[in-house]
């Protein structure tokens, strides 16, 4: 730990370290989130560097609590750390209030940890943008959390390599009356649009939460069914 900040302002008023962190995010595998009337879906690319990699051991959609999960674009290990911090925040809240935490509350508290990394001495910003999806008392939520600590609520969004194209695609396809099944199909279609090579049930990950407040990461067999429906 050093005493001085590593992230400091440029003369133009920018925090270059955060810009560079966003560059790292832009190089990461694409992740897409869509909020429907009655649920939220997260879909993320999981392309492995080699066929020798044990695909089932890689988990890109992480459960933060029963009704909230997250995925990312950018540096995997940074996401792992933040996911664990988020889980601890949920439990801390649970110990104090014994109540299901709201997605907005969790996003805000996690965002504080992310912001601290842009100001505290001796540490660098996190190199991930995170998509948090959950269903709480207020309804379905989709929140994007950036390396700067800024967080935004979305109806539908994409982060990572194909973010720009995917968002353009989503803008055309999204409508507020979407049900969760439509949203899942749309998310898969959006991912397929910019996918390099063949999309298979094992090189993507799909997570869904419906109004039962239970987040489920779909097993490859279910993903296969959805992908076949797209044909």
């Amino acid at each position, binding site marked *: 730990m050093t005493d001085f900040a590593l992230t400091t302002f440029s003369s133009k008023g920018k925090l270059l370290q955060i810009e560079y962190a966003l560059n790292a995010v832009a190089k990461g595998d694409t992740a897409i989130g869509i909020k429907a009337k009655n649920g939220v879906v997260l879909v993320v690319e999981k392309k492995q560097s080699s066929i020798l990699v044990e695909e089932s051991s890689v988990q890109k959609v992480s459960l933060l609590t029963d009704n909230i999960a997250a995925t990312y674009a950018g540096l995997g290990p940074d996401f792992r750390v933040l996911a664990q911090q988020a889980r601890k925040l949920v439990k801390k809240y649970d110990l*104090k209030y*014994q*109540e299901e935490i709201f997605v907005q*509350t969790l996003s805000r508290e996690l965002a504080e940890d992310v912001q601290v990394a842009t100001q505290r001495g001796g540490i660098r910003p996190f190199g991930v943008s995170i998509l948090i999806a959950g269903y709480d008392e207020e309804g379905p939520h989709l929140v994007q959390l950036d390396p700067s600590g800024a967080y935004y609520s979305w109806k539908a969004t994409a982060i990572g390599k194909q973010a720009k194209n995917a968002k353009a695609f989503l803008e055309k396809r999204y409508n507020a009356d979407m049900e969760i099944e439509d949203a899942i199909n749309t998310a898969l279609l959006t991912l397929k649009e910019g996918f390099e090579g063949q999309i298979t049930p094992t090189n993507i990950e799909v997570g869904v939460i419906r109004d039962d407040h239970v987040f489920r990461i779909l097993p490859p067999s279910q993903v296969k069914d959805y992908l076949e429906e797209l044909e």
Partner: protein
Amino acid sequence: MSGIFEYNGGSIVGMKGKNCIAMACDRRFGQQMSTITTNYQKVFKIQDNILLALSGLNTDIHTFYALMEKEINLYNLKENRKMKPTTFANLVASALYERRFGPFFVTPIVAGLENGKPILATYDSIGCKSDLDDFQVGGTGGNYIYGACEAFFKPDMSPEELEEVIGQSLVSGCDRDALSGWGGVVYVLTEQKLTVKILKTKQT
């Protein structure tokens, strides 16, 4: 100090009715055998639908109440919503346990209405929460009030009946206890309003 919970004296009682709850407390603030004032507040309105009653060491009553006020105000500002009575009830338990090895010398009762449903919880001084179906007492006159409550209480009373029963139980209990009394205050909370009534007890 022997009997730190008895030093200031005072009694509280909470009761559930049909879609309503009631809390009552005495008004005495004493120092062992001396009475200092006869208008000390022991029941606090935390939110429109939550009441907190505290008995025990008066300095801790005041401090713990202030701590709960701070928690709920910060919660309202951060979360941009009101706190549910069951959530507040859990908050009281964890706040008490946080001071496990240097506790607040209070025994709280929390009462509230959550979507019209009555909520009643009581705790020991280190946060052991009990959810109750009927009534609970606290303070030096507690045991005497218990007797009166057992005799007069019936489930699903109307706000008017509840006010009468809790008032009578408090008054007869405090009359027996040397360290409680000098007046009583009864709070009855329904979906529509909170009524506060001041009662006369034996002036000793």
